[in-house]
């Protein structure tokens, strides 16, 4: 293989993957309720010892 056909589309795809990745990540974290997120953060402190 000498070159990749249609290489121009790659940067656009890459940017879209990136954009989507971080948008989804934000949706992910901000869809938690305040109580749940606090509960999750408290897990290490829940042990008796």
């Amino acid at each position, binding site marked *: *293989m*000498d*070159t*990749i056909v249609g290489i121009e589309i790659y940067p656009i795809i*890459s940017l879209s*993957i990136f954009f989507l*990745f*971080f948008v989804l*990540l*934000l949706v*992910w*974290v*901000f*869809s*938690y309720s305040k109580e749940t*997120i*606090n509960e*999750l*953060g*408290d*897990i*290490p*402190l829940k*042990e*008796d*010892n």
Partner: protein
Amino acid sequence: MEMQQFYYDNKIVKKFLYACIIFGVVGMLVGLILAIMFLFPNLTDGISFLSFGRLRPLHTNAVIFAFVGNAIFAGVYYSMQRLLKTRMYSDLLSNINFWGWQLIIVAAAITLPLGYSTSKEYAELEWPIDIAIALIWMVFGINMIMTILKRRERHIYVAIWFYIATFVTVAILHIFNSLELPVSGLKSYSVYAGVQDALVQWWYGHNAVAFFLTTPFLGLMYYFVPKVANRPVYSYRLSIIHFWSLIFIYIWAGPHHLLYTALPDWAQNLGVVFSVMLIAPSWGGMINGLLTLRGVWDKVRTDAVLKFFVVAITGYGMATFEGPMLSLKNVNAIAHFTDWIIAHVHVGALAWNGFMTFGMIYWLIPRMTKTKLYSEKLANFHFWIGTLGIILYALPLYVAGFTQASMWKQFNPDGTLVYGNFLETVTQIMPMYWMRAIGGTLYVAGLLVLVYNVIKTVAAGSKVEDELAEEPALAVISSKRMKGEKWHSWLERRPIQFTVLSLVAILIGGIIQIIPTIVVKSNIPTIASVKPYTPMELEGRDLYIREGCVGCHSQMIRPFRSEVERYGEYSKGGEYVYDHPFLWGSKRTGPDLHRVGAKYNDNWHFNHMWDPQSTSPGSIMPGYKWMYDNKPMDYSLIEKKMEVMVTLGVPYTEEDIKNARKSIDEQGALIEKNLHADPDFVKSYEESKKNAATRGEEFVPMKDREITALIAYLQRLGTDIKVKETVQNK
């Protein structure tokens, strides 16, 4: 709900902790010896297995895989059981993990000084040990995933996400970088050559830093910092973003180790962009760690454990600020190959990994032995002497790095180099090497104080016992998404799906970078005049690998005026197509060797390798006297080596292989003849013949000794492109 009783396995944690401390002392002492060798290069003169080139991989492997590795296992085994409210899945697997890992370390400690090395940084171990690492790592992974599956806590806490990513990614990195074809029981050749080998190696090397030295420790940070400070992590939301963005971006950044090299430009630039982006998740994590201490900063004043954590996280922040900066091409042009990089990695290793581990040890040992730390004062002393050690280690090397770079690049008005002799830069920075050794000594002294403190604590405490705990069983719920359950909440309770998703996240970057470099031939233009090594050169190259020359010498001339002036024509990707493995190196304690071929005569190399200071006053290179021993060089594997090379695509003909011994004999005889040009050589050669005769020993002619093969290789280096003709491969 019915309460279930179970025991946390503390004994396995104890074992890993002790191993971590023991190997920490060993690994750092070897490091200290190496630092002292910069000052007294002939400290271990004539002892092959204690030479710098062979000890250097022992130091890096011991510190990374033995000290940090055992710290990871100790922390993971302790925190995971408690975060998941269950004992580890299998005691047998835990113990196989422990003993297997220690066996691998011992195997490394034996083979590396004996010269069994692949020469690929942090992946130097030979193929049987590579296989053992893969198997033991799988045992660790299975034990972890199965423990998650039998947990009593619905949500998988973020620390464990980092552990999962560590397991998955290290497995992938290790397997793909270690693909090699065995020649014998302890010798193999990388399946990749030249540029491709370099790309795969630094995809591995960089991500070994990411997924062995960083992600597991971030997991530990997310568990131990809240635990010790007794407050939840500053922002759990931030920790989720931290996790996904870090593992997604990190994997792309490897090519920043290869800027201005023969790696295709697009791959270099991709590496730069992602390295710069990395600062966001890294600093997000650092801030999250430090802000966890909000409201308890008063405790930091008195609590040694928290002090260690604060400096560790700060060190992480410094190293991850420096990393993206070093990845900028203009900064990299200065820093690469200099001692700056050594300073950079040691800020990461000594502060981030070292201090995080020390904090963890000081916190865990009293808890598990149900007593108080023997001396809080000594722990504080350790903290201060260690911190001072880090500063004294790093700062001089930053100065050394800048000094080297500016001296290497300085021109006279007439266009010649101001410091044309490489040694001028070496002698200039000797005071820095002294200070570095002192800094290292302080750091090791701190570690020894820890050892004493731990021994006293353990002696006063009770025997480490498994710990009784009581938790309700987890109610069985559907494995599918329940009504009203969010997608991510579902994912966060499904370990297998979660593992697969993190695998996908890390594969994207690797695939996009590596596959085009391997399949698109135009990325590596071939050069018609580049021919495979002769049998003797190939064997000489293996000696170069055995002695770890790559630890101090690069074979990669960057396309800078200063480098072309100093070393010769800059290096082309096509020159390395037969190099299994590549030997570009990453540090120039000595000069680049890519165009050293035909630069000096054979006698010069002969005298230089015996006593470097005789030809190069002020040199800090050690002699390699064992290569002159009155013993024939072992050529027994040459045919096999060439056959393996043929399998890997090197065009040796059957005739080449058949005539290998003859060719070796001829080339050796020619070098021996050249050596006779020096009357001193003739004199001492005749003398040693007589001495052998009086001792009744058989005399091995010089042409059959190791040094001759090495000279053959050195004289070949970079000579192929004297005929300049680049041909695009069809």
